[in-house]
């Protein structure tokens, strides 16, 4: 199976959790075990554009208990005999092998996944900055030899890119270091905030320079936070920025 596999280096490993939870898109070749008409295949695929139940397959890296996964869309692309090509956008942790099997069951003839290519993992897509293993080796050598840092930017992206789809809260410089030490984000530290945040949702705390400070769980909605003068806005779950990057601006006893 091929395609988009974001590799996080050193410090950026801290955002892996956000990537695992993020949505994925795949292009898949499904092989039918019997004949079925194109209309029938299209109709059955459409039925799966929904919240579906899946039990992870035998060979899985998670506990095998029934769980729900959202299928955002399935686009039928092509059919050649018993081979069906389709594109699927789904929640992280959806097993496409299982999806093919289940589509086969509903069709009645059975089916299995023949080939799979991931075309998106969260904000990372095929059309933007996707590099092969050969390119990584080549660009890295080029950078080593020339010392031209522009080459690094050809194949490495800042970890902030991985958080592109996570709603953000931008904060004051003076609030940054307290958060790096594990403090929660309180209302006075907030400068601006993206729409669509609800209590309990994951947010990314950013500086005005666009640096990621931490991943946190919002304690209120965007609208509520805009009106808050004090109180905790987001509980910090994962600090991303090293301590001491920004000056310490709090007094002892306040923490």
């Amino acid at each position: 199976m091929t395609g988009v596999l974001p590799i996080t280096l050193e410090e950026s490993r801290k955002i892996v959790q956000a990537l695992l939870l993020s949505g994925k898109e795949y292009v898949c070749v499904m092989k039918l075990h019997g004949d079925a008409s194109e209309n029938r295949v299209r109709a059955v695929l459409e039925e799966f554009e929904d919240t579906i139940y899946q039990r992870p397959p035998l060979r899985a890296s998670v506990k095998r208990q029934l769980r729900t996964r959202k299928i955002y869309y399935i686009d039928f692309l092509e059919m050649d005999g018993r081979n069906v090509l389709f594109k699927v956008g789904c929640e992280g942790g959806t097993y496409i092998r299982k999806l093919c099997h289940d589509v086969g069951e509903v069709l009645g003839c059975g089916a299995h996944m023949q080939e799979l290519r991931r075309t998106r993992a969260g904000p990372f897509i095929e059309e933007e900055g996707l590099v092969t293993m050969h390119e990584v080796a080549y660009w890295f050598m080029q950078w080593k030899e020339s010392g031209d840092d522009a080459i690094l930017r050809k194949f490495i992206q800042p970890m902030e890119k991985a958080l592109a789809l996570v709603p953000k809260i931008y904060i004051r410089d003076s609030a940054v270091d307290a958060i790096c030490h594990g403090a929660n984000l309180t209302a006075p530290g907030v400068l601006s905030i993206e729409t669509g945040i609800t209590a309990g949702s994951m947010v990314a705390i950013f500086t005005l320079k666009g640096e990621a400070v931490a991943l946190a769980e919002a304690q209120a909605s965007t609208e509520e936070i805009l009106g808050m003068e004090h109180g905790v806005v987001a509980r910090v779950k994962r600090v991303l920025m090293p301590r001491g990057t920004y000056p310490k601006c709090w007094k002892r006893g306040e923490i």
Partner: protein
Amino acid sequence: MPRSVAPWMVERKLLVKTEGETDPKYGCRPEERPAKEYIKFGVINLDKPAGPTSHEVAAWVKRIVGVENVGHGGTLEAFYTLRG
């Protein structure tokens, strides 16, 4: 049945609560990090080839780029027919 919208199709607006400034003395815009830092806080959008496992591919990147640790976002199983 209401269909869920894919996260990459959600549009967000930025609403300002209070105006503020940032001091150029501290921190650094992500794209302008010095090389060593840039790598340390970097992600590679890798095109995984068929054959090796996601884990093997990650280990390979770790060796090439000479970093101490790597992780990967979401396992893509190895070419299945080779492993039964």
